[in-house]
Structure formats: structure tokens, C-alpha cells
């Protein structure tokens, strides 16, 4: 081998070298979640590092205090073996919205962005320059030249402020995404394992829930539903005339649907009446959510030529209530299950997550989906 070839070999990436992905960072309502994956050539990615740190206060306050945000990120990065500062962030919910739009390319037109912008005019208040938007084309409808795209929109000032916050925290933001896309990426990875083709994700938040429909690798739509954990808890408080903290404790302990054998204390006390009471109080609210879910089923059937939704995943704060998925299953007539532990898909050799596929960790679903950006699932 010549000296030149040897020198070139020194700089050639070795096949056994681990490729470390970006740090997926999800600034959730009550905590900041970080996940980083790494992959060795021809192998599935594994979790390199993960961290979840509670926000001391509210997210709104955190986002207005760069020093506190920086300190939080610094502590999170130091808590595990994170590598580098390259990160993919999710724009916090409430700072963006998504719209599914139909558009047509004018005779022979190739400029898809221009067509999207044309379609977006009139849907936004004020000048388009005040917004940041990006879109994901959804598969074309066969019967016409009409195309479908999912557009994510955010106010430019909010986006720049958030990016500056991240930059001042020492992060090198390589991409700014939205939560539904991260979930879509994660469910695609799950689907590769489970074989599910079309997945509906019900992500329940504090004030609203989000229905995200994913077909294969396509994010078909993301819709906000005005039913959140807060409204359900408030409904119980009003009906039973109890403080919010007590209602939350009750929901977390007893749940909303009877599950035999799970809780010895409930079995001993025979809390059937309590389950029934809570179910009856929450049923009207859950039915509103189920209506939206059924509407999503119809949309999925129309967009997937009748194949319909094959899996419904529940995640978010409502998913922590025992029996929530059973209640939604019973009301919707479809199987609703909690999203599998995201980290169980990418077990690290020195981690117990590979043995905890049943462990429920929905809070890091978005961060894991963000960390998957740019990573090849099959090595």
C-alpha cells in the first residue's frame, strides 16, 4: 500500500465507528426531555444518553428566562453521556399550528413551494413574512391533480426567540421540528417492528389534545382537539366539589376504568362504585374526544383507500390515568393502547430498557422521535 493510500485510509471513516445522532430535545409542559441515539454501521440505533429534568415553575416562565433554560440544559447534558451540542428541537405546543391544505400546480408548474404559498394566502392574518412555514407533501390524490400537504406555521418572532434561547443555552440547533412529526417518526419505527400501516396517535396535553395520523412514513394530518387533562380534571372538581389536587390524586390512583387485580388497595376497598362514578362524569368529555377519533378514522380511510387505522396509540398526561386506554377502546370500538416505551425500541447494552418493553414512558416519545432525525433505523 502506498503512503498516499495509507494516509487516505487514516481519514476514511471506519465501518466500526459509532455514528452519534443529534440530541432530541422536547421542552414539555412540566419537564425537559433529552434523548440521543448512536448507531454502529449496519446495526440498529441504540440509546446513548437520556435525561428528563423537571421544570422549576412553568414552561412559559422557563422560556422567558435564558439563564434558567441554559442551566437546565447544562444539567441535563451533564447527567448522562451526551455527545456534542448538535440538537433537534421541537417547537413547544402552542407556538405553532398545522394545517392540511389541498393545492394544485398550475399547468406544468414545478414550483411546489410557490403553489403552497399561494394556497396559504388568505389563511393567515397579516403579512406572510411574519410567519415561518414549512410543509410536508402527503401522497397525491389519484383522481385529480389536487395534492395534499401538511403545513406547519409559526410566528416568526416566536421561532427566532426560541432559537435564540437554544443558542444561548449552547445548543447547535440543526433542525426545528414539531412534536407530531417526531411522534410520526417514532411510530414509523414502531410500525416497522409491529407491521402497523396506519397509526393514529392521541397525544393529550394540559389544555388540548392532538390527533396525529400517520400512514407509513407520511404524516397525514395533525389536529388539535380542545379536550385536555385540565378540562377533565376541572370537570371532576366541579361535579364532586373537591380541590384540583385531590381530583388529580384520585385519577392517578384509581383511574377511570376498573382494572381487576392491578391495585390491591382498590380490590380490598371494592372501589367499583368510584370507578363508575368517575367514568360517568368523564364519559361525556371522552365521547367528544372519541368523536374526533372517529372522524380521524374516516379521514384515514379516505386517504388510504379504505385501509383505515390499524393502531391507536395514547400518550400524554391522560395516558397516565389507569384505564384511560380501556375506556377509549370501549367508547370508540377500536383497540387503543398506550404507546410502547420508545427506548425499548433502541435498547442500549448497558441499559435496562431492553427488558422494559412494557414499561410506559410516553414523556420521552417526542424527544426520541426528534433524536431519530437523520438516523437510519436499520443501520
Amino acid at each position, binding site marked *: 500500500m502506498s503512503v498516499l493510500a495509507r494516509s487516505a485510509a487514516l481519514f476514511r471513516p471506519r465501518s466500526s465507528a459509532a455514528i452519534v445522532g443529534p440530541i432530541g430535545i422536547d421542552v414539555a409542559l412540566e419537564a425537559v426531555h433529552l434523548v440521543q441515539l448512536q448507531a454502529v454501521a449496519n446495526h440498529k440505533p441504540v440509546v446513548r444518553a437520556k435525561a428528563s429534568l423537571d421544570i422549576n415553575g412553568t414552561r412559559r416562565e422557563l422560556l422567558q428566562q435564558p439563564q434558567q433554560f441554559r442551566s437546565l440544559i447544562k444539567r441535563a447534558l451533564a447527567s448522562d453521556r451526551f455527545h456534542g451540542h448538535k440538537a433537534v428541537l421541537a*417547537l413547544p405546543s402552542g407556538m*405553532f399550528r398545522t394545517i392540511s391544505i389541498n393545492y394544485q400546480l398550475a399547468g406544468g408548474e414545478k414550483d411546489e413551494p410557490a403553489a403552497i404559498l399561494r394556497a396559504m394566502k388568505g389563511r393567515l392574518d397579516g403579512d406572510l413574512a411574519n410567519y*415561518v*412555514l*414549512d*410543509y*410536508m*407533501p402527503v401522497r397525491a390524490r389519484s383522481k385529480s391533480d389536487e395534492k395534499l400537504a401538511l403545513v*406547519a406555521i*409559526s410566528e*416568526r418572532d416566536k*421561532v*427566532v426567540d426560541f*432559537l435564540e434561547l437554544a*443558542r444561548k443555552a449552547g445548543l447547535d*440547533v440543526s*433542525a*426545528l*421540528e*414539531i412534536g407530531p*412529526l417526531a411522534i*410520526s*417518526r417514532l411510530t*414509523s419505527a414502531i410500525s416497522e417492528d409491529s407491521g402497523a400501516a396506519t397509526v393514529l396517535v392521541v397525544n393529550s396535553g394540559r389544555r388540548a389534545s392532538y390527533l396525529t395520523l400517520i400512514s407509513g*412514513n*407520511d*404524516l397525514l394530518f395533525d389536529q388539535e382537539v380542545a379536550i385536555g387533562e385540565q378540562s377533565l380534571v376541572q370537570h371532576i372538581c366541579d361535579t364532586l366539589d373537591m380541590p384540583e389536587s385531590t381530583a388529580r390524586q384520585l385519577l392517578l390512583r384509581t383511574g377511570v376504568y376498573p382494572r381487576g387485580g392491578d391495585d390491591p388497595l382498590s380490590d380490598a376497598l371494592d372501589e367499583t362504585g368510584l370507578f363508575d362514578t368517575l367514568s360517568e362524569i368523564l364519559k361525556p368529555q371522552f365521547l367528544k374526544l372519541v368523536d374526533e377519533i372517529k372522524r380521524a378514522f374516516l379521514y384515514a380511510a379516505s386517504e388510504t383507500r379504505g385501509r383505515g387505522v390499524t393502531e391507536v396509540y395514547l400518550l400524554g398526561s391522560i395516558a397516565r390515568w389507569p384505564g384511560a386506554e380501556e375506556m377509549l377502546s370501549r367508547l370508540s370500538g377500536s383497540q387503543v393502547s398506550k404507546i410502547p416505551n420508545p427506548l425499548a425500541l433502541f435498547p442500549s447494552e448497558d441499559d435496562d430498557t431492553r427488558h422494559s418493553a412494557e414499561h410506559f414512558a410516553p414523556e420521552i416519545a417526542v424527544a426520541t422521535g426528534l433524536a431519530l*432525525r437523520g438516523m437510519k433505523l436499520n443501520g
Partner: protein
Amino acid sequence: MAELDLIPEDYRDRLKRRAALRRYVIVFAVLNVAVFAAGGVFAELAAHASARISELKSQSAITEQQQTQLEQLTSKQREYEQRWSLLRGLRAGAAVEDIFRIIDRAMVDNDVWFENWSFRRAGVVVDGETRGVETGYFVVVPAAGQPADTADWQVETHMVLEGRALDHQALSTFVRALFEQPDIKDVSVQKTALTNYANGRVVSFDLTIVLNSDVERI
């Protein structure tokens, strides 16, 4: 899977420009530090060099002073050597008894006798242009700072003889015999006169004899 990114392009470009500017500033700062460091090093080296030059200059000044002293001493040495040469010249030449012997050898018969005999050996100042022979001269080198003295000194040894000869023939024979002596340089008959006595006439004469001096030319 299609990707989505909400980072505004102009913001990304601005960050890139800022990063490039930061890199430029860092490189500029590093270069400045390097230049200042090099400047400091060179200044230090220059200071050392200046100190060394000053040291060498002072040493050189000392050397020049010593050189001047050496020249003065050399000049004095020459002066003393000239004087010593002069003294040697004065002391050199034939001994008195040898002179008598030389004169005696020149006398053929008793036709010549002497009435007065004077001997002189001294340094004589002569003009350099008048130097006819290389021996017997020495040059006085002027001391430093003094005007050059062009006068040459010659050790001159001569005798003045006053005597009588029976006749001019006898005197001539005697003078010729003197010339033939190697230690005699010149013989000059200064004066002759006939002196009458009761029993005859004799020739009175004054002779100046210049002897060779063994003085080396300096």
C-alpha cells in the same frame, strides 16, 4: 420520510455569518497574540543585542584606548631606541688605542710627527638630503602630537691632527696611507704651511680625519 424544519433561512444564514465572523475574530486574535508575542520576543532579542553591542562598543573603546597607549609606548620605544642607537653609535667605532694603531700604520718613516691631536665623536644634525651613505645615520622620530622633525642625526667621529712633516712628499705619503686604512672614511688636509727652522724647513699641516662609525641605520 419527508422532513420539516422551521428554522428561517435568513436566521440560519445569519448564524453562519456570525460563526464565520467568530472564526475570523478568533483567528485574528490568535494572529495578533502571535504577532505581539513574536514582537515581544524580538524586542527582547533586540534588547539583548543592543546590550551586547554596547558591551562590545565599550570593549572596543577600551581597545582603542589601549591601542593609543600602545602607539604612544611604541613611539617612546622608538625614541628610546633611537637614543640608544645614538649612544651606541657614540660608543661605537674604533677604540682609542686602535686609532693610534691605525695612524701608526699609516706612518711610513719618522717624516711626520704630531704637535696636537684632538678627537671628537658626537651626533651631528644633518639634512636628510645630504645623506650620502647609508651607514652612520639615524632618524629621530617625533613624539606623538609633536611636529615632525625632519633633522637626521649622524654620528661623526673625526680627529684633527696638527703636526709637521719633513716635506710635502712625506705628508702626501702619510695622507695616502691613511686613506688606505679601512677604518678611515675621509681625510681632509685643512691647511699646510712651510715653517722655517734654523736647521731647515718643515711643513706644518692640519688634517681632519673622519672615521667610519659602526652605527646601524634605524
